[in-house]
């Protein structure tokens, strides 16, 4: 009796694990399929670029405020913390390099992607999910209009285009924040701040690598947000869960991808 109960419970547990694994693999496959279909049906997004431009406004321009304000504070905190440590070693003039490299290489792309997932990613998921719930995507299908070409692809390219621009702005505003704290407030030499930065920040190794990271994060975050919306069960609860998943999966993906990309970039 006890043996059979134990066997039943073991079977249920293993079955549950198997079900969850299969479901996740299935979702990964469905996501990859949507990604390739999006690329395949992207012609419309460029032929009628106003569709993509409109989405750039909603995903990129509307995210500007949170990106700029966050960047400003991140830059200021970096300068404060950096100065605190650097002055112990008598190299407080290197504060400009520290702020710039931290922002351009890591914080710019990563924090922008995390903020983008929270601000624009959730909006994309909720919008697509609600379009599905209210049968707008079905209506489009019935009008012989492909929703992937008309709805998904323009949003995808808008995210991919917006992310590097936002990350660049993040780094620029962050450096400005760092400058304001380091030079006028703390009193670090103005010339040393900029000249050390100019001498030590490499265009190819630092700026281009940062841009590549933000581009990859743009593809990942936007695609996750679009897939979660497209795959959301057409109920209020379904859309709410999909929106939460967008933030969680995007954030973890960005952090994992950052590690992988940084490893490759440091080796190459």
């Amino acid at each position, binding site marked *: 009796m006890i043996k059979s109960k134990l066997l039943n419970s073991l079977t249920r547990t293993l079955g549950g694990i198997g079900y969850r694994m299969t479901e996740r693999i299935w979702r990964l496959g469905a996501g990859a399929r949507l990604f390739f279909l999006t690329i395949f049906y992207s012609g419309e997004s460029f032929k009628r670029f106003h569709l993509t431009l409109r989405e750039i406004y909603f995903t990129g321009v509307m995210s500007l405020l949170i990106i700029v304000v966050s960047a400003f504070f991140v830059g200021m905190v970096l300068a404060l913390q950096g100065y605190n440590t650097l002055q112990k070693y008598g190299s407080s003039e290197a504060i400009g390099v520290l702020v710039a490299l931290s922002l351009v290489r890591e914080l710019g792309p990563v924090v922008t992607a995390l903020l983008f997932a929270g601000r624009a990613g959730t909006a994309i998921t909720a919008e697509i999910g*609600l*379009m599905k719930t*209210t*049968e*707008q995507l*079905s*209506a489009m*299908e*019935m*009008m*012989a*209009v*492909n929703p992937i070409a*008309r709805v998904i692809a323009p949003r995808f390219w808008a995210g991919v285009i917006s992310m590097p621009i936002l990350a660049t702005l993040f780094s620029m505003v962050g450096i400005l924040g760092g400058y304001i704290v380091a030079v006028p407030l703390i009193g670090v030499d103005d010339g040393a701040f900029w000249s050390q930065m100019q001498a030590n920040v490499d265009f190819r190794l630092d700026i281009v690598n940062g841009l590549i990271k933000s581009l990859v994060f743009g593809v990942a975050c936007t695609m996750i947000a679009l897939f979660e919306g497209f795959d959301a069960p057409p109920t209020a609860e379904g859309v709410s869960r999909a929106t939460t998943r967008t933030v969680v999966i995007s954030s973890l993906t960005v952090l994992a991808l950052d590690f992988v990309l940084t490893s490759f970039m440091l080796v190459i």
Partner: protein
Amino acid sequence: MNPNIVEIDNLSFGYKGRLLHKGINMVFPRGKVVAIMGGSGSGKTTLLRLIGGQIKPSKGEVRVDGAVVHQQDRDGIYKLRRKMGMLFQHGALFTDLSVFDNVAFPMRELTDLPESMIRDLVLMKLNAVGLRGAYNFMPTELSGGMARRVALARAVALDPNIIMYDEPFAGLDPISMAVICDLIRSLNDALGATSIIVSHDVKETFLIADYVYFVASGEVAAEGTPHDLMQSTLPFVHQFVHGEKDGPVPFHYPASNYQAELLGHKSAKSN
């Protein structure tokens, strides 16, 4: 020319191991208003999705203008859908577009018409449903009846041969219901189209339909003109048409023995 624009031949459809339709046969003659009626969950809307090629049948076929829908590739399906217009249950208007842009949507997406001509056509369609004055409203500013009328204008934007209506009267006040009822008939006659109405509102549907199919338990339970069906002595049709609460369609969903379940529950609790 085939007198029937849509033909459903021995169609079966099921999912998750449950057979929703079991060998359904229906024809939809050109120029007529044909209704598909039945209780909630009887698969009426699924029939519209099968006609539109959004899902594939398990057995049998749906032919639209002679073409077997599920055998078409994506381009073929889209070509067939250009002959169709569909009014969804809640309108399915694009919430980020104005009334004008919603009606203009299929014209802009599927034709190369100049914007000046699209403007005139949209205003004509909106005038036909009595909402020309609301062209710059957003969908959130419309009442349920108005949204349904805008969706109807959008469904007929490209003068389709087949117009499908999914529960067009659901949730409307009596005035809006009468307006939609009148519009379905008049637009069908003006466009020379074929209308397929899925509904469970007997009074309104019988008022405008030329022919009615009753679907129950996955089969066509009865068919005929509204007049014939009003006189029908078939138990299911009689119960449905006269809105009786018990009959062949039972009040209770199938369940285990009531007494046994209550007693079982009691003894389980006492344990």
